[in-house]
C-alpha cells in the first residue's frame, strides 16, 4: 500500500491515544476492566483498566467485566462519530458480553479523538485542482492566475482558465494576477484554517495585478480533500440555508424630488433654497434640516462646476437592486456646481477616463444621456473640461 493512501486513523491509534485523552471527571469513582475485541484487518485485542481515576490501556484481554466485540471499520466510525454506538449495538454490529451497565459510563471516559493531521503539500493542492473544477464557477472566465508559493514546500504555478476549461501548469505563464504567499499559509487557507481575507488584510497574502479577478476564483474549485481521504471534521448536523430574498418596491418621489428629477429631462439641475438661511440643497429635500422649514424656493445651478471631493473606489459593493458588482476603479465625487457655495455639493460620478485628473478644484461638466427618463442617471457622469 502506497504511504499516501494509508488510512491515518487506525484502531491501534485510537487505543494508543486513550491514556492521553482521559477525562478525569468521567472516570472518577469507576473501577472495572473493559475488554475490546476488534475484528478484521487492523483489529486486535485491548483491555482498558479503570481504577478509580487511573486508566491503563493494555494489549490483550485481561479479566474484563464487560467485553465489546466489533469490526475495525465500525469501531473507527463509532469513534469518529460517524456511526452512532447505540445504533451499532441495536443493529448487531457491536456485541457486548458481561456487565452492560458499565458501558454507559464508558461513554464519558475520554475526550474526543482527533485523527492525526494528514500531510498536505502545496504540490498536491495544485496537482488536484484540475480534478476539482467547479464548472459553474469557471464559466465565462478567461484569465491566467499566477501563484508564487514561498518556503520549502513552495513553487510556482499558473492556473489557466479559458471559459470553462482549466489547466494547471508549473511556472508562471502570463498571469493577469499573481498571488504570493508562504507555503504554510497557503495550506492553511486551502484547508479553511486561515481566512483568506484576513491573510490578505494582514499582508500574509499579497496580490499583484487585477484584484477583481480574485473574487470569482474562490468559486473555481470544489473543496480540497487531503490525500488520506480524511475530510476535515464537520458536524453533519450543520446546514447553511442559502436564499436570495427580494421584495419589489415602488418608490414615490413626492413633489420636491419629483421636480428635481423632472428637470433633468430638460438637462437642467435645480436646487431648492431655504427661505430662512438661504442654503441651497442638492438634491432638493422637503425641508432645510438646519432651520426645519420647508425649502420652497427653486434655483437653477450649474451645469458646470468643479470637483470638491473625489473618492476613488477600488472596491465596489454590489448594487443592492441588481446584485451586480461594477468595475473598479471608479470615481464618485462631490461636485460644487456654479451658483453653489460651501457644502452645497452634488454627489455623482466622474468619467472613468478622467480618473487621473480627479483632483480638487478641477472644472467639470455633466454628460447627459440621449434618452432621459427623470432619474439621477440621466446624467451619465461628469467629465473634466480641458
Amino acid at each position, binding site marked *: 500500500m502506497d504511504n499516501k493512501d494509508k488510512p491515518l486513523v487506525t484502531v491501534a491509534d485510537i487505543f494508543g491515544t486513550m491514556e492521553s485523552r482521559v477525562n478525569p471527571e468521567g472516570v472518577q469513582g469507576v473501577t472495572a476492566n473493559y475488554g475490546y475485541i476488534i475484528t478484521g484487518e487492523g483489529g486486535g485485542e485491548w483491555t482498558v483498566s479503570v481504577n478509580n481515576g487511573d486508566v491503563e490501556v493494555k494489549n490483550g484481554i485481561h479479566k474484563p467485566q464487560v467485553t465489546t466485540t466489533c469490526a475495525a471499520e465500525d469501531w473507527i466510525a463509532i469513534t469518529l462519530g460517524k456511526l452512532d454506538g447505540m445504533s451499532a449495538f441495536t443493529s448487531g454490529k457491536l456485541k457486548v458480553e458481561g456487565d452492560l451497565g458499565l458501558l454507559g459510563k464508558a461513554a464519558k471516559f475520554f475526550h474526543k479523538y482527533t485523527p492525526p493531521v494528514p500531510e498536505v503539500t502545496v504540490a498536491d493542492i495544485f496537482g488536484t485542482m484540475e480534478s476539482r473544477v467547479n464548472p459553474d464557477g469557471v464559466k465565462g472566465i478567461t484569465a491566467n492566475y499566477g501563484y508564487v508559493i514561498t518556503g520549502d514546500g513552495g513553487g510556482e504555478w499558473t492556473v489557466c482558465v479559458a471559459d470553462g476549461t482549466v489547466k494547471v501548469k508549473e511556472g508562471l505563464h502570463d498571469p493577469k494576477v499573481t498571488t504570493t504567499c508562504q507555503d504554510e499559509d497557503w495550506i492553511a487557507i486551502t484547508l479553511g484554517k486561515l*481566512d483568506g*481575507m*484576513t491573510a*490578505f*488584510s*494582514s*499582508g500574509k497574502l*499579497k*496580490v499583484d495585478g487585477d*484584484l477583481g479577478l480574485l473574487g470569482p476564483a474562490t468559486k473555481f474549485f470544489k473543496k480540497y480533500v487531503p490525500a488520506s481521504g480524511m475530510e476535515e471534521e464537520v*458536524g453533519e448536523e*450543520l446546514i*447553511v440555508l442559502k436564499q436570495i*430574498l427580494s421584495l419589489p*418596491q415602488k*418608490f414615490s*418621489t413626492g413633489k420636491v*424630488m419629483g421636480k428635481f*428629477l423632472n428637470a433633468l429631462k430638460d438637462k437642467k439641475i435645480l436646487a431648492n433654497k431655504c427661505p430662512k438661511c438661504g442654503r441651497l*440643497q442638492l*438634491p432638493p*429635500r422637503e425641508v432645510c*434640516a*438646519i432651520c426645519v422649514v420647508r425649502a420652497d424656493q427653486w434655483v437653477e445651478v450649474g451645469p458646470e462646476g468643479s470637483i*470638491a*471631493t*473625489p*473618492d*476613488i*473606489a*477600488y*472596491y*465596489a*459593493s*454590489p*448594487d*443592492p*437592486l441588481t*446584485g451586480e458588482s461594477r468595475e473598479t476603479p471608479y470615481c*464618485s465625487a*462631490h461636485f*460644487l456646481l456654479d451658483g453653489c457655495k*460651501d*457644502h*452645497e*455639493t452634488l*454627489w*455623482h*460620478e466622474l468619467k472613468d477616463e478622467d480618473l487621473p485628473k480627479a483632483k480638487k478644484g478641477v472644472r467639470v461638466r455633466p454628460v447627459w444621456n440621449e434618452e432621459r427618463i427623470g432619474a*439621477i*442617471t440621466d446624467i451619465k457622469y461628469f467629465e473634466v473640461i480641458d
Partner: protein
Amino acid sequence: MKKNRNVGVIGVGQSKYSSHREEVNQPEMIHEAVVAALNHSGITLDDVDCIVHGNMELFEMVHQPDLWHTLGTGSYGKETLRVTTGGTTGATLVAVADQLVASGLHDVVMAIGFEKLQEGHTTGGITNMADPLWARQLQTGALTGMTAADVIEEFGEQRAKMASMKYRIIMDKHAMKNDKAHRRLGLEFDQAEDLAKNSPALVGELRMIHMCSQSDGACVMIFASEEKAKQFCKQPAWIKDHVTVHREESFCIFGEPDYVTSHRYAAEKLFGRNGITDPLNQIDMFEMYDPSSWWGLDWIREFLMLEGDSHIKMIENGDICIDGKFPINPSGGVTASNPIGATAMVRVAEAALQIMGDAGEHQIPKPVNQAMASGFGGTMWTVLFLLTKDVPW
C-alpha cells in the same frame, strides 16, 4: 439635568466575534451572550423585568427579529422594547435601558445588540441606506477615502500614513489581549511601512488593513437601579450621562469650509453639563467607535476637543496604548470586531468592564474612575456616554 434615579451596569456578556459562526443560528448566538451577562451579574432571568433589542433588519433580512429571537433572548412573558438607529444602535440601546430604569418603570433591564453579518451582504445592506431615488448607485457601503485625504493634506503623506498605521497596529496589539475579538492579526510596528504601501486599497488611501471587519456576534448588558445594583454587584459602572447628536440626512460636509462634527458637538455638550474642562486628565479611558484607523485617528481630536496635531502626537507617543497616559480601545476597538448592531454597545460595555475591573487580560493597569464611550452611525451620528466608578448623584 438630574436623573430621577441612578442606574448602574451590573453585567456584561459577549459572544465570540467571528466571521464564521455557522455553528449557531441567530437566537443561539444571542443566547450565548445572554447567559454570559447573567453569569457576570450573578442574577437569573427571573430578576430581569424588561428586554431591549436592536439590530438592522436588512442585514439578515428578518423583519422585527425580536419576535423570533425570543427563543434566545428570554423575553417570553416579559416587557420588551425594540429600538434601532443604524450603527449607533448598540449605544442607543444603552440609552434606552438607562432611561427605562431611571424612570422607575423597571428595576432591572437587559439590553441586547446583535448582528449576524455573514447571513447577508453588509456593504450591500449599508448601501441600501442611501436614498433609492438618487444615491444608491453611488454609495459604497460605509467606505470613503475622504478622511484619509484630509489627514494627508493637513499633516503630510508620510506622517499621516505612519500615524494611521501605528494606530491600527496598537489596536491589533490590544485585540491580541482580548479573546472575544474577531481579528487578531499579530501585527508588529515594523510592518507599518509595508502595510501602508501594500495593503489593498479600497477607496483612495483607505486600505483593507485600515477598515473594520464584518463580524457575527451579540453583546448583552444588564442595568439596575441603584438599590438593586448595590445588592447584586460589588462595583457597578454607573451611567452618568449620555448625549445623542445626529447630522442631517444628506451629508452636506463635502467641500469648504470646515464644519462642526457631531463628535465635537456631542463632546462639548457632555463635558459642559458634567463639569469636564480637561478631558485628558478627568477621563481615564475611552472606548471609541472607530470604523477605520483613519477615522479613529481623526476623531481623537474631535472627541477630546483638541486642536492642531496633538491627537497625532498621542498616537506617535503611544499615549493611547493600554498602558499609556490615555488608553483608547483596550478591547481592540471596531477595526478588530464589528457586529454592527452590537458594535456601539460593545464600546459602552468595554468601558463599563474597565470601571468594574473585570476586563481581564485587557484591563488597564491604572485606576479607571471615569470612562467615556462612543457610538457612530447613520450620516455621521454620535452617541456619547460618560460612566463613573462613584455613584453620580
